[in-house]
């Protein structure tokens, strides 16, 4: 029985609302029959008419409202229709929600979940295709997680909503909604050995089963995970390069251990992200790995990212701007090639 990421999230919301009266859902255009721009909330308003609040177009305002609700006993899940609009709520997230618990001497909790569908590849143009979570990383008190199809997205959403008392941005990816969830079964995912560490926002580490040591660690999160896996397969077949793919879901605070361990085994690091590179997730991973596993690094870590321009609307340009399998191949080959060349010399 397979299901999509969309289905997993939607089902999780249904189950949570069914089980826990404190769960409320807020956002734009959530009501059935429309059920939200990407249909993650479909069917909720019909079943729970009092607890699905379709909002005015007021991203700052309704994130603020939800913070207030969270501080007074509820478990609101907010949908930002397109993650691009999260910037409108930046002050609410950083100067309000993220600060309240610590600033108020731990007297309050803010169990707020803000869901944000990010990413391009759908031709939506400059203001509806961005991957903006990098700008929200590193805020004291604010958690950022990103799902991918190797974990059960609904379970992660449930943990974020019911078990986590911290305000949290839950990054989804527009293209990923239609993907099948395929979590590892008995330590394997297809041809790869799979390990998941870190609850409730696990990092999945995948490696080809019968290889003692892989050649390179590829880190990818969210929408880049599937692309990294495709690259890893190609590299195996075409280049006999063995990749370990690390797919973290906790972007901040980042659990660097599984990544640093992997680099400890491979000595080489390529980090993929859909945003442009500067001061992004890859920068943090490379810095943190440098801090933890510097001696293991055999060559310069590389970043695969968007070109640093707005995401153009025209498909020819959008494709060239966003990171593709080919970019990962190039980065990995660059890393490994240098080493192979030096080894065979």
């Amino acid at each position, binding site marked *: 029985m397979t299901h999509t990421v969309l289905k997993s999230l939607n089902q999780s919301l249904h189950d949570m609302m069914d089980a826990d009266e404190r769960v409320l859902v807020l956002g734009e255009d959530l009501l059935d029959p429309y059920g939200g721009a990407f249909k993650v909330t479909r069917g909720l308003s019909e079943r729970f008419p009092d607890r699905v609040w379709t909002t*005015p*177009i007021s991203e700052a305002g309704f994130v603020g409202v939800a913070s207030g609700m969270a501080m007074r006993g509820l478990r609101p899940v907010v949908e930002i229709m397109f993650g691009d609009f999260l910037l409108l709520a930046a002050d609410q997230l950083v100067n309000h929600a993220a600060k309240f618990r610590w600033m108020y001497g731990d007297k309050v909790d803010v169990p707020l979940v803000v869901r944000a569908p990010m990413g391009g590849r759908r031709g939506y143009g400059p203001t509806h295709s961005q991957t903006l979570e990098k700008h929200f990383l590193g805020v004291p008190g604010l958690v950022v997680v990103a799902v991918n199809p190797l974990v059960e997205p609904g379970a992660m959403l449930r943990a974020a909503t019911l078990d986590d008392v911290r305000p949290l941005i839950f990054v989804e990816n527009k293209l990923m909604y239609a993907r099948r969830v395929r979590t590892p079964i008995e330590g394997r995912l297809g041809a790869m050995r799979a390990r998941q560490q870190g609850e409730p926002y696990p990092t999945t580490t995948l490696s080809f089963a019968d290889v003692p040591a892989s050649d390179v660690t590829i880190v990818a999160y969210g929408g880049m995970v599937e692309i990294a896996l495709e690259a890893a397969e190609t590299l195996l077949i075409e280049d006999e390069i063995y990749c370990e793919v690390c797919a973290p879901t906790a972007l901040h605070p980042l659990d660097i251990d599984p990544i640093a361990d992997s680099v400890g085994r491979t000595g080489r690091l390529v980090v993929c992200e859909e945003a442009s590179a500067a001061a992004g997730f890859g920068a943090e991973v490379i810095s943190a790995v440098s801090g933890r596993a510097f001696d293991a690094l055999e060559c310069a870590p590389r970043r695969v990212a968007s*070109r640093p321009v707005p995401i153009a609307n*025209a498909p020819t340009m959008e494709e060239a701007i966003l990171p593709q399998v080919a970019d990962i191949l190039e980065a990995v080959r660059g890393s490994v090639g240098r080493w192979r060349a030096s080894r065979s010399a």
Partner: protein
Amino acid sequence: MSEDPSLGPAQRFEQMEGPPAHRLYRQMRLIRCFEDKLLERFEAGDVAGTTHACIGQEADAVGVINHLQRGDVVFSNHRCHGHFLVYSDRPELLAAEVMGRDTGLVQGRGGSQHICWEDFYSNGIQGGIVPVTVGMGLAEKVQNTDAIAVAFLGDGTFGEGAVYEALNMASLWSAPVLFVVENNRWAQSTPVELELAGDFVDRARAFDIEAGQIESTDAEELYEYFGPILESVRAEGRPRMEVIHTYRLCHHSKSDDKRPRQEVEEKKKDDPLPKMRRRLDDEAARRIDAEVAARIDGAFRWASQQPFADPMSIVDPLMERAPQ
């Protein structure tokens, strides 16, 4: 801003042939025909992404924009095709843009909702364009150009706080700006009652901004209505808001319409195109329809022959130090 500026919209409107009703109809026909063709292309999978058509609201565009002088600024939103076509009369450039061509309005970078041409701009983020437009109007005033600025916004956009910040500053600083509210009664899938408490006009007046409203899809009526209004904004150098109560006859974007079928059908009686067409003699109407159809065909044909947007152009030389 452009090196070889076209006529201003008002001048162009004056130079169009035929009586005003003919001209208004021709312009609305151009918008409708453009969008019908565009949606056809989307259906056929020829065009990627999404788009917001203004079918049913064409009378707003012709009613307002035909009064603008060269140099006047327009800032439109996601639903900008009608505004742009009246402003520019250049359907081929918009067609090329939405089809991702290098000769599109902004070289394929913006697509349907992020365009710029001469003094016309649009952006796809609700609300934020309103303070930007106020700044544009103020810049014209500071530089004594006599130009004014027009911002288009929808009913739903009144949810955004930026709108009120802009109204306040526009009023305090006497910005020569007209805020045109197209209340089409829905924001995406949300009816206005669920998104708006109170009243548009009261909101403007609470900021000491003169405001009025008109319920109409009659292009002639709107054209008459907005003449003195734009004149007064220019003459008085004060902001003003006007609400047009209208209706969107198409889906919000591409194909996601869940509004009550009956309501939409009922509203089709107010479709601005047949309303205006009925005022033309049949011969003239058919001639215009045919001419416009041919023109739009030509525009899309031309556009589809243009080179695709150039993937080599995805650099920004002014930001070149950013890591790749």
